[in-house]
Structures are given as structure tokens and as C-alpha cells.
């Protein structure tokens, strides 16, 4: 059961990483990157590292996304 | 042309990394070389030496507190650099 869940989560990670690279719209790319960070937080829980899971959910998915969105609100949205 | 060179070197790096993974010790095996006497000592003596239950907090703030102080300095320098870049005059 755990093997199935791990494989599924890891393949989601790769799909999200490729999708970030392929998306033309910067806002969509940032939202996909936030989803990537959330999947990463679940993987930290699978690896028995709850400290990093909390930190990643707060910093990776929250603060980094906010900073990126603040940047594209100051600049432009199209690539 | 530039793209071809980039892809070639990326493929080279990727092949090297994947070949390294094939030679790595097994994932999650208790006899791995990383699980030596260092983490054992932290887990056995951590509670009595620092008084914490969460060993990670104990290592972060007690055993390696100097490391954390340096890391706080990195945050300080980062915010100073970002502010000086954003508030600089345009000319």
C-alpha cells in the first residue's frame, strides 16, 4: 500500500515539475509550483520528517508563492 | 546549436547521476553507512543533555546553535540586500 502511494506521489512530482517548465502563462506556472510544494509536504510526512513538512507547507507553498505573485503583479504575466 | 550542446551535457549529467543511484546503498536499510554512531548518540543522550523530547529541536537550537545563529545572519543579510536593491535610486 505504501509503495503504491509513494510511487503515485513521486510521479505527481515529476508531472508537476514538467508542467511548470512547459506552461507559457506565468501565473499558471506559479500555481502549479504551489501544488508541487504541497505534494512535497506530503512526501516529507511519508519520509517521517514532520518538522520539514510543516516548514515546507508554510514557507514553500505559502511564502514563496506569495513572493512570486507579488513579483508578477509588479511586472508582467505573459512569458 | 546552443540547444544541442545544452541537451548533450544535460544527458551526460543525467546519465552520471542515474548511474550513481544504481550504485547507492539500498533505500531505508538499517545497516546503511549513514546510520552510524552519531545519530545513535543524539537519540540516546539528547533528552538528558538538553531536556527536549523533539530531538530535532534539540539539535537545531542546542548542539548546533552556532549553525542556527549563522543561519539567522543569512536571513538578516538577505533582507538587507533585498531592501537595498528595491529602494535604490534608479539612476
Amino acid at each position: 500500500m505504501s509503495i503504491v502511494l509513494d510511487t503515485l506521489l513521486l510521479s505527481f512530482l515529476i508531472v508537476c515539475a514538467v508542467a511548470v517548465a512547459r506552461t507559457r502563462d506565468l501565473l499558471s506556472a506559479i500555481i502549479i509550483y504551489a501544488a508541487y510544494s504541497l505534494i512535497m509536504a506530503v512526501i516529507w510526512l511519508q519520509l517521517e520528517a514532520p518538522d520539514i513538512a510543516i516548514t515546507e507547507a508554510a514557507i514553500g507553498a505559502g511564502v514563496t508563492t506569495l513572493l512570486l505573485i507579488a513579483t508578477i503583479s509588479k511586472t508582467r504575466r505573459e512569458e | 546549436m546552443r540547444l544541442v550542446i545544452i541537451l548533450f551535457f544535460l544527458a551526460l549529467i543525467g546519465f552520471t547521476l542515474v548511474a550513481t543511484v544504481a550504485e547507492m546503498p539500498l533505500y531505508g536499510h538499517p545497516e546503511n553507512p549513514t546510520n552510524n554512531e552519531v545519530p545513535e548518540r543524539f537519540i540516546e543522550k539528547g533528552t538528558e543533555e538538553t531536556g527536549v523530547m523533539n530531538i530535532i529541536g534539540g539539535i537545531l537550537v542546542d548542539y548546533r546553535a552556532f549553525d542556527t545563529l549563522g543561519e539567522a545572519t543569512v536571513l538578516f543579510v538577505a533582507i538587507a540586500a533585498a531592501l537595498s536593491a528595491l529602494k535604490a535610486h534608479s539612476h
Partner: protein
Amino acid sequence: MIEVALRLFENKYFLVAMILFIIGFHTLLTHSNLIKKVIGMNIMDTAIFLFFVSIGYVDGAVAPIIEPGVEQAYINPLPTVLILTGIVVAVSVTAFALSLIVKLYESYGTLDAEEIMRIRSNEP
């Protein structure tokens, strides 16, 4: 060949970390958009974090939060501590890069790295 494939599947966390590193590196090198470059750098960061933490994992062990009177195996706490500081350093580097991007956009009016290079080469 099958042995190698089985070994790779057994070490799937390491393999995925390497693949993510390559994807991030590719994004960083081939995209000329600066924000895409920053996201690629972040993906490379998380790939290295994943590699480090999965080295410290032990089968059947739990997170190192001591319960008195319970005998059980704990995972290796050292990689977790190193990565915890690494995440915060990564976000500060990202913030600095983004502030530089905002200033670059103010003075050149574009986010494209190659276009900025062209404008700079035309300047006296």
C-alpha cells in the same frame, strides 16, 4: 539490465531526486524568462532536499520524538536538521532574486534575459 532496473525502483526516491534536479537544471538553462529561471532554481533546491532526507530514512522507524518507556527505532535526525536551515536559506535567496528581477524590469521593461543582453550590448 533487469537487476539495474530493480535496483533503481528500490531506490526510487534517489532516482526521482535526480530526475527533478535535471528538470530544474533544464528549466534554468533553456528558458530565457527570469521568473521561470527562479522557479527552476527552486525545483533544483527541493530535489537536493529530497535526496538528503531520503538518505536519512530507515524502514519501520518513526520521527525522532522521544516517547518515554517505548522501545522503537528512530530515523536519522541529522539530515532533517540540515535541510530545515536549507529551506529558509532557499527562500531568502529566492526573495533576493525576485527583488533584483523587479529592479531589472523597471529599468529595461522586459523579463527576457536575452532581450536584456541585446539592449545592454546596444548601449554605448
